[in-house]
């Protein structure tokens, strides 16, 4: 019991000290500390956002006769209308939604399950398993995708070979399956990372609570469900929002799978669609509109998820 009382508070946001002494020297120091980051942040984050939003209202148009230099014309919301009316945009968006609704819960579910198991009294060799699960995160996403592409490719894949010897026709690259083959790559790469975040949060819960619950006769399963999981809500929020953002900008997996699967076209996901619009079709206004829409979708989903996850606690 004493440990709880002595435990240092986690969030002492004491920001006093120099408050009232607001001298010019302090102000200069603050400026020196923040200016380099802030200036570059403005350059690398804010400029492209503003530029995108502005460009999304313009379009590059050639004169109807095809003479002369193409000129940039204000087109209002045309680029947005074009995106919303385009089948390709909705297909790409639909794919990442399908991907996100299945892959994210599966991945986070596995991560939570593994974290709870590693935190349970029954687990042994915790640090070994922890490293093994985290290992895929050390492999850059695009390289992980390349390795899995080989593991999927019909001529090389040991799984396909295994299927053949058992008389089963295994195909990872067909139009119906390839999205889930990509989901597997993402799950493989990020489950351990998410597991580690959850496990760190679990290990920060004071152990006394579990002992008290055990004395009251609660099973380990019930402790995991009723005591542990609700207390790592911030970790679940963080991993959930990270995963949503990751799914919105899904790129490495489809870009790599495109090389070996005919089922993946150049507009398979929104990021590829925007890239193609900008660099292949030189239609930057359209690319910008797609990016702005995606950023909005990401924002709405993150807020929604946050609200949902936090409301559950009450």
């Amino acid at each position, binding site marked *: 019991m004493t440990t709880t009382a002595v435990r240092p508070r986690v969030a002492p946001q004491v920001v006093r000290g120099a408050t009232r002494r607001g001298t010019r020297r302090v102000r200069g*120091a603050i400026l020196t500390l923040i200016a380099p980051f802030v200036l570059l942040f403005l350059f690398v984050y804010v400029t492209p956002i503003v530029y*995108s939003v502005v460009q999304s209202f313009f379009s590059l148009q050639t004169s109807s006769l095809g003479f002369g230099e193409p000129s940039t014309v204000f087109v209002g919301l045309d680029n947005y209308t074009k995106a919303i009316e385009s089948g390709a945009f909705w297909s790409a968006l639909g794919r990442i939604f399908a991907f996100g609704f299945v892959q994210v819960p599966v991945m986070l579910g596995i991560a939570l399950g593994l974290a709870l198991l590693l935190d349970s009294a029954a687990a042994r060799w915790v640090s070994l398993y922890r490293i*093994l699960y985290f290992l895929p995160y050390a492999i850059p996403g695009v390289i992980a995708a390349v390795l899995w592409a080989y593991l999927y490719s019909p001529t090389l894949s040991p799984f396909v070979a295994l299927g053949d010897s058992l008389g089963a026709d295994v195909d990872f690259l067909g139009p119906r399956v390839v999205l889930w083959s990509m989901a597997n790559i993402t799950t493989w790469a990020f489950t351990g990372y998410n597991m580690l975040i*959850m496990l760190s949060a679990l290990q920060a819960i004071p152990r006394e609570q579990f002992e008290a619950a055990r004395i009251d006769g609660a099973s380990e399963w019930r402790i995991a469900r009723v005591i542990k999981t609700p207390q790592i809500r911030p970790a679940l929020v963080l991993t959930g929002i990270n995963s949503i953002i990751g799914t919105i900008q899904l*790129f490495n997996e489809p870009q790599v799978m495109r090389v070996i699967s005919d089922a993946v076209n150049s507009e398979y996901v929104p990021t590829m669609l925007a890239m193609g619009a900008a660099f292949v079709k030189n239609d930057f206004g359209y690319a910008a509109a797609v990016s702005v829409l995606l950023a909005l979708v990401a924002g709405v989903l993150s807020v929604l998820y946050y609200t949902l996850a936090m409301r559950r606690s009450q």
Partner: protein
Amino acid sequence: MTATTPVRPDATRVDAPRERRRRPRRDGELQVDPRTAWATLGVLTLAAVYFLIPVWWLLVSVTKSNATLFSTNGFAFGDIDLAANVTDVLTRQDGLFGRWLLNSIMYAGVGGVLATLLGVSCGYALAKYQFRGRGILFGGIIAGVLIPSALLTVPLYLVFAKLGLVNTVWAVLIPAVVNPFAVYLGRIYAAASMPDELMEAGRLDGAGELRIYWTIALRLMSPALVTVLLFSFVSIWNNFFLPLIMLSDQDLYPVTLGIYNWYTQTREANYNVVITGSLLSVIPLVVAFLSLQRFWRSGLTAGAVKS
């Protein structure tokens, strides 16, 4: 009481990047049903197998010549041609692979150090001073953490193109240096490890604010700096979309983009080269991960508990 309740001074302190002291065999008194223990072990091992399958396949495949790759079982060793593969990777296109590795080390090293310094300085100011615009600044940084950064890359390309930065090292380095997550972590660590009393003491001794930061705060935060550096380094090393968009000169490629390039070009004739290159490019990171584990966990904990 004290005999049965071991004091764990660090177990609940999650904000400082200090290694959590190994918990004494917790729940030691608790009897675990052996069946539960075996079932737990079984599930954990099954998961480990899933995560290790591609790694095992990679370790096996890297030893095979291209012909052997197609003629043997992917999970079993065949004729060992590891040396030939490595030589092939290192000498191909006049040793381009070595150059890619060096580029990656440069981008991630220089970019990571600068990202850490800039981010932690800004985070420290946010944590320890009150100034006008602080709220807006912090809000902007959180938004920066949350925005899907791939969406910024295409417009950034156009901005960089106007400035003539495209297809230069700066096109990769400048965005790499700006890491909002480093500010976020820096703020948490500064709040946790730099007491106001120490700043006050420094002031009384006549030290300026920057000197207090540079000589006292940074030193106190040095374990945190390693954590932030590690996160920045790895995120730059792993980045693929940014260099893909920005660079066309192969001599400037980081190793991720280089391998992707080989992957798209070579097809079946040279799978062994891509596979061996992948392994070689991953080794430095895996070593960094395994040896710096505690710093990872501290960073992940800070992110998870404080959000």
